[in-house]
């Protein structure tokens, strides 16, 4: 418990440092907000255009798709803002920052996770929250207290699952000899798939990109469950389990990876 407390304090100390580092880009902050708003606007525009021609995709209406989108965007922003370091593992390995981390009396995982902060994440989370708000308003959902709690838990789980995905993909750098690692970009790009209901894809795709890389549990099942669509409850009930498995896998990958790690420069 004491260790946990120390880690939390450290987390904030590191992030405070990161924020100070970022302040030097102050001029770009506004530009970044504009860019994010703009690119998210385009992505949403795509959905709007598709739906302006037809009423539904795979049995889902536009506002329901908005919820899927909101879950994905929120988890993405969450990682960008709170744990952007998950993206930077490869850099850390090759810029020998990891050497410095390893000589400190603190968990390396924490130091890696907090290696960077990205305010774009905050921006994304705000947009996502707005989307979720609108989506909830437009969809007819029978709210109960339990469902409300579920909604928040699902959102949290989506963040954890996605963080673990990126983390594992980034940590593959420990095994790869090359100086760059695009697996994490690949994993995040796959999120594109989860913006639409899983059922529209053929079974092979569903298997690989829904379950093996568990995107189905990030948005499809949770949102389906909230919307009370058929056959979603079982999947949604599994999300905590998937969450745990992913977290355990992420932990293991780091541990194994560090054991393999060899500092490069002489």
């Amino acid at each position, binding site marked *: 418990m004491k260790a946990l407390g120390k880690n939390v304090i450290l987390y904030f*100390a590191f992030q405070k*440092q990161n924020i100070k580092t970022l302040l030097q880009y102050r001029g770009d902050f506004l530009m970044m907000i504009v860019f994010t708003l703009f690119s998210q606007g385009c992505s949403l525009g795509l959905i709007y255009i598709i739906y302006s021609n037809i009423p539904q995709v795979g049995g889902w209406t536009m506002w329901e798709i908005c919820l899927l989108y909101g879950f994905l965007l929120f988890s993405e922003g969450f990682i960008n803002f709170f744990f952007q370091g998950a993206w930077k593992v490869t850099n850390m390995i090759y810029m020998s920052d990891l050497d410095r981390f390893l000589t400190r009396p603190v968990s390396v995982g924490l130091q890696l996770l907090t290696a960077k902060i990205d305010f774009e994440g905050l921006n994304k989370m705000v947009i996502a929250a707005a989307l979720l708000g609108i989506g909830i308003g437009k969809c007819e959902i029978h709210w109960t207290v339990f469902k409300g709690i579920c909604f928040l838990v699902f959102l949290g789980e989506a963040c954890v699952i996605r963080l673990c995905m990126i983390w594992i993909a980034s940590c593959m750098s420990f095994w790869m000899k090359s100086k760059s690692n695009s697996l994490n970009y690949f994993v995040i790009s796959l999120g594109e798939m989860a913006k639409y209901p899983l059922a529209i894809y053929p079974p092979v795709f569903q298997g690989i990109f829904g379950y093996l890389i568990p995107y189905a549990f990030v948005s499809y099942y949770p949102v389906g469950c909230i919307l009370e669509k058929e056959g979603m409850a079982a999947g949604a009930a599994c999300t905590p389990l998937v969450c745990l498995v992913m977290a355990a896998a992420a932990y293991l990958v780091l541990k194994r990876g560090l054991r393999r790690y*060899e500092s490069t*420069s002489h």
Partner: protein
Amino acid sequence: MLKIDHLRKNYGSFVLDCSLEVQPGCITGLIGQNSAGKTTMFKAILGLISIDEGTIRIFGKDLKDFTAKDKQELGVVLSDSGFSGYLTIEDIIPVMESLYPGFDKNFFKEQAKRFQLPEKKRIKDFSTGMKAKLKVLAAISNKAKLLILDEPTAGLDVVARDELLEMLREFMEQDEERSILISSHISSDLETLCDDLYMIHEGKIILHEDTDVLLSDYGLLKVDSQQYAGLDKNYILRKKEESYGYSCLTNQKQYYMENYPGIAIEKGSIDEVITMMIRGERL
């Protein structure tokens, strides 16, 4: 404090193979040319690379069992990493405080002022000397029991180097149990600072000696070939051909001074000893 026993690391073309010990209360120097294996050895000590054979023990504990908590007692300066350049000294303090329970904030601030490290300037705008001093200062402010410093004086001018060494001396004076392992390719830094010296060449330790002994007993004999023929070679470590005959490295200067009064004997500097050890031939 630190004991390395038959450490072996094979890189194919380069093999590190050495033993080394740092006694409590001592400053041990590791001296060698560029790419002699100094940094590799330091990385092995810090567990940053895997080792093929041998054991490394720090504070009597095998490196494999070293936990994050044990690292609190270590102060480390590596040559190629430092602080994020966009921060100032003021910014690092809170992080150092939460990282190391033993971090002495007042000492850190005091010393920063004394060595004229600006508190509000970004580290990336520091000069090389200021950066080096800051790295060492951060390492000694944790009240570490063992300091491991890889080339802390690299690229510094004479004055900055002297200030840095002064910092280390004061660190040692505060507590008798403290030890330092320091590497450099500038021998004069280590000559005045260290209690004992290890010389490393192509991954192997070629000489280990107390600094006092090195300075008092080692010497260079300058002899022509006739004198060389009549020389008792029991205490000659290396010889090298010169235009005038031979120069010989001995670790019993007194013996030759007493028995061969006609021979020119020079007090060998550490640099000369190293050069002889590496380039001279064995008898």
